[in-house]
């Protein structure tokens, strides 16, 4: 093996300590995996024991010790994808390729990975092949996609029926164009992951080219086509907003071939293209919201520091450092009532105060951007849409606690967010907002970007610190708390992305302003990612205390196909399911806890009558089982046993004793696990047992899955009255289990049926029944 590349990578690091994970990322990106020889060589060069490198390489799922195939397939099984049938799609890929998740085909063409949430929940279910994201995939469509890659083409078919989307990161920077005559024209194309995934880059390019061609530029030197971050309303992406002399018109589902008509008729002719307008829904989705944190997302170019400064950016940091004492800043944040938005809801001002008071000259501030909850993408959108707000929040925080060094620990699964944040940090440094003598007020503070490597547990603060210290992500018992003894044993304050992005607004508008939003103990606004079985998916920012009903029906537009609302899952794997009977609960920390769930980081996955709650509990437990670090007994052994019990119930082999066992085990895990991952892992089980015991009992007593999800308990049959004998199902059946003559009723060979559901999806006449 050539060692030059490794020498080259090493030469870029002044110090290896604290950079090991980044180093391994670089080695893997060079070789495509982590070759054994490379690790031995790295050990020799750095003096790090080879066992430690091996330990890290096998702990973090992002790293691979085996070469990967030419096409890497990531089948997303995040919560939103799961409730929309992701497991059937994964099964289909496995069957087609003859490999399990984590394996590579013998011909080295495909590597299949199961990933827990790529943050594109609005397009669930999602499959990523190479750097292409495919949304709204069905078992049938995935076959078409695979076939084409198997045929040897690197480029996907243009006519594939699945939503086919260019990769994040391929976004092109805006070319400045100028307004026509004296009119002010501004076109904003959503380029958050939703927009990018739906083809935003091509739309943006079409606008830029056409407007340049038509001479719609020139006089004012003002940008007229903007690349903007997430506008929130991902369900109708690509969203394009056209503002002419301040009059706003929004278009939905915009495709590149629609651009010329919009330019000709609307921008030049002054008459909007009626049939493509977004209609009252767009207005309704946004009007009910209060965008304190998301305000700039979707309105400014996230890649341009001037755009941020133009809306008052960095003024709060300037004001805090120049005219407030650190104590005063902390007082202000305490008075605002802001609580941490990452999940635990610890008062931010108090955390800052504890860290400020902790003895020590060197302190750290860490921004936790390891957003791992499946079905949640608030932090990704904030970073992609308004990265400077996070940086400004960190500067204010660093001043308050007296930290000289800051880190952003961010998921490697978010390439676009990483790219935008990296650019933003570089811009801030260039302007003197980071580095020595920040903003000219004598504060020394710089921010370093650190990538995670695929471990949900690293969102837990002690595990996050371990990861920054070149260790595997093993949580440590508290006390000591990080504010006293954190990174490298020094006082460390860890805040979440949304929390930090809120800080500049509080400093700007005052604690009283923030305190006036929300309810008794929950202040301000909260961002939720509203996904699953809901008409309008996307990011929603509402004042604390808004009724759940309002979010789901008024903002989210209710449940598709008039299905019955069953529950909403909040708080991810640590949270719980809130049933229809509590739909009027005010959404704040206290009330969500009272109904057996948690606020969590803001994931909100809506479930309808077709969602099996036992299956949902099993889904979350399997997530925690995969993500458990394996250190403590209750979490390592307990998640596996919970999974086994739930699996037996969903297979129709459960007894009432299973329910007692689930409860007993859950309580011990909650009380005795070492960290929050294990302590909260049983929550989805406990909350579904509390509200949906009848569903558990149906599986146990009647061997029935009322929602028709659990494979062992359902049966597909063809209704001879409806079947037209069109043979569509028989042709699609992967088992060739459907027989019958053309134009005559078909039937399913139950012994051969694997219950993949493709026939059910294929039949246009509703002739396949599932019961």
């Amino acid at each position, binding site marked *: 093996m050539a060692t030059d590349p490794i020498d080259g990578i090493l030469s870029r690091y002044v110090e290896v300590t604290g950079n090991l994970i980044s180093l391994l990322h670089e080695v893997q990106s060079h070789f495509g995996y982590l070759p*054994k020889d490379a*690790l031995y060589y790295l050990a020799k060069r750095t003096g790090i*024991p*080879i*066992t*430690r*490198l*091996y*330990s890290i390489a*096998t*702990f973090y799922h992002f790293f691979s*010790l085996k070469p990967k195939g030419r096409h890497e397939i990531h089948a997303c099984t995040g919560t939103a994808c799961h409730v929309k049938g992701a497991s059937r799609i994964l099964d289909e890929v496995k069957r087609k390729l003859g490999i399990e998740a984590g394996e590579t085909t013998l011909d080295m063409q495909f590597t299949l990975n199961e990933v827990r949430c790529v943050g594109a929940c609005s397009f669930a279910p999602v499959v990523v092949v190479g750097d292409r994201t495919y949304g709204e995939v069905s078992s049938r469509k995935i076959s078409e996609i695979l076939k084409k890659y198997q045929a040897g083409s690197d480029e996907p078919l243009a006519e594939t029926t699945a939503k086919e989307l260019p990769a994040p990161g391929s976004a092109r920077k805006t070319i400045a164009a100028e307004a026509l005559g004296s009119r002010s024209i501004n076109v904003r194309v959503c380029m958050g992951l939703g927009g990018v995934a739906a083809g935003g880059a091509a739309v943006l390019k079409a606008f830029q080219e056409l407007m340049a061609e038509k001479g719609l530029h020139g006089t004012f030197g003002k940008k007229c086509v903007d690349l903007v971050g997430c506008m929130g309303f991902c369900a109708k992406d690509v969203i394009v907003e056209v503002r002419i002399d301040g009059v706003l018109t929004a278009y939905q589902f915009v495709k590149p071939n629609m651009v010329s008509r919009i330019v000709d008729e609307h921008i030049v002719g002054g008459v909007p293209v009626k049939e493509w307008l977004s209609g009252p829904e767009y207005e309704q989705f946004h009007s009910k919201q209060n965008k304190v944190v998301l305000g700039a997302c979707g309105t400014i170019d996230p890649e341009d520091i001037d755009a941020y400064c133009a809306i008052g950016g960095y003024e709060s940091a300037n004001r805090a450092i120049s005219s407030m004492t650190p104590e005063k800043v902390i007082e202000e944040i305490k008075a605002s009532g802001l609580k941490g938005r990452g999940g635990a809801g610890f008062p931010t001002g108090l955390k800052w105060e504890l860290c400020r008071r902790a003895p020590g000259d060197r302190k750290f501030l860490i921004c936790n951007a390891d957003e791992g909850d499946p079905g949640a993408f608030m932090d990704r959108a904030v970073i992609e849409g308004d990265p400077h707000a996070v940086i400004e929040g960190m500067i204010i925080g660093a001043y308050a606690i007296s930290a000289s060094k800051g880190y952003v620990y961010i998921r490697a699964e978010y390439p676009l967010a990483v790219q935008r944040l990296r650019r933003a940090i570089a811009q801030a440094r260039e302007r003197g907002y980071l580095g020595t003598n920040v903003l000219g007020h004598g504060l020394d503070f710089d921010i370093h970007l650190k990538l995670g490597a695929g*471990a949900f547990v690293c969102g837990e603060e002690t595990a996050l610190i371990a990861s920054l210290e070149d260790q*595997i992500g093993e949580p*440590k*018992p508290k*006390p000591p708390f990080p504010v006293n003894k954190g990174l490298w044993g020094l006082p460390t304050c860890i805040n979440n992305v949304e929390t930090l992005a809120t800080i500049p607004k509080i400093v700007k508008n005052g604690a009283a302003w923030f305190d006036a939003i929300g309810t008794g103990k929950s202040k301000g606004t909260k961002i939720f990612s509203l996904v699953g079985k809901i008409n309008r998916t996307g990011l929603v920012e509402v004042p604390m205390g808004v009724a759940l009903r309002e979010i789901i029906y008024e903002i989210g537009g209710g449940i598709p196909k008039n299905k019955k609302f069953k529950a909403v899952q909040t708080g991810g794997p640590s949270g719980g399911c809130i049933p229809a009977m509590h739909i009027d609960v005010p959404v704040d920390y206290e009330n969500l806890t009272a109904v057996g769930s948690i606020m969590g980081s803001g994931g909100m996955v809506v479930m309808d009558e077709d969602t099996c709650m036992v299956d949902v509990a099993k889904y979350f437990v399997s997530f925690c*089982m*995969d*993500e*458990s*670090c*394996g*250190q*403590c*007994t*209750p979490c*390592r*052994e*307990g*998640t*596996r*046993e919970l999974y*086994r019990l739930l699996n037996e119930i969903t297979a129709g082999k459960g007894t009432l004793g299973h329910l007692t*066992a689930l409860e*007993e*085990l859950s309580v*011990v895990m909650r*009380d*005795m*696990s*070492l960290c929050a991952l294990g302590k909260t892992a049983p929550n989805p089980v406990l909350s579904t047992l509390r509200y949906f015991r009848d569903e558990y009992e149906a599986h146990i007593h009647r061997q029935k899955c009322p929602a028709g999800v659990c494979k062992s308990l359902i049966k597909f049959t063809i209704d001879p009255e409806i079947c037209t004998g069109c043979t569509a199902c028989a042709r699609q059946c992967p088992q060739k289990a459907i027989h019958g003559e053309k134009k005559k009723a078909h039937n399913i060979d139950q012994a051969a049926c694997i219950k993949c559901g493709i026939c059910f999806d294929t039949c246009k006449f509703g002739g396949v029944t599932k019961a």
Partner: protein
Amino acid sequence: MPTITLNGQTQEVPEGMSVLEAARMAGIDIPTLCHHEALGAYGACRVCVVWAEGPGQRPGLTAACTTPVSNGLAVQTESAAVQSARRVIFELLLGRSPESESLRSIAKRYGVTSTPYGEGARHDLCVRCGLCVRACREKIGTAAISFAGRGQGRDVSTEFGALSELCIGCGACAAVCPTGMIRVKDSGGERVILRDDLTIARFPLLTCTSCRAPLVTEKFMDLRLQGLPDGQSEVLCLDCKRKRTAATAESFANIWS
């Protein structure tokens, strides 16, 4: 010194102690698997569960080994809640390692003789207490073994499961292993260190300079001799060393008489 109550008895205990140490000092029995006096608290096995309540300690179950004592802390080591949680934790461990004699015997002391768990799990003797890994890394300073994988796949391993390049053959890992998962086998002048089916390392043994009995590995000797003046490289087994000392003492005695 903080004052705490242990099962209703008031005790003064030194500052900085853990509840586990305080209880053991007071002669109260609390089981442990991942705890070792020579190594810091780790908090992994959780069998040292106790009930604690006091200033700065939310009332509830906690691991005694990682809970610091504080003034006014009240601890119960045998309440119904403690016993019930401890039973489940032992059952979970037995589900993974049903064949471990030592685990079975500790569990039995606390009334746990069977387990409803473990079906479909990968069984072995390892309770993932990490003592071997920590002893090797923290005390010997070699890091010949480490944890590999995570969650269900967490195992003690050498790099890539290969014969270790770093092991010095001291056997500290086997000495601290509570279940016999890691063993040292000396036979035919050779030392083999094993983690059940995995051979961690294999060494020829140096023999006693005096009686020629197989003794220690060369790498271990190198480590022991570090910093000692040259010439002190004689390797003696305990018996020969004792004889040598006795002989020296005798010769001194002769001089005096």
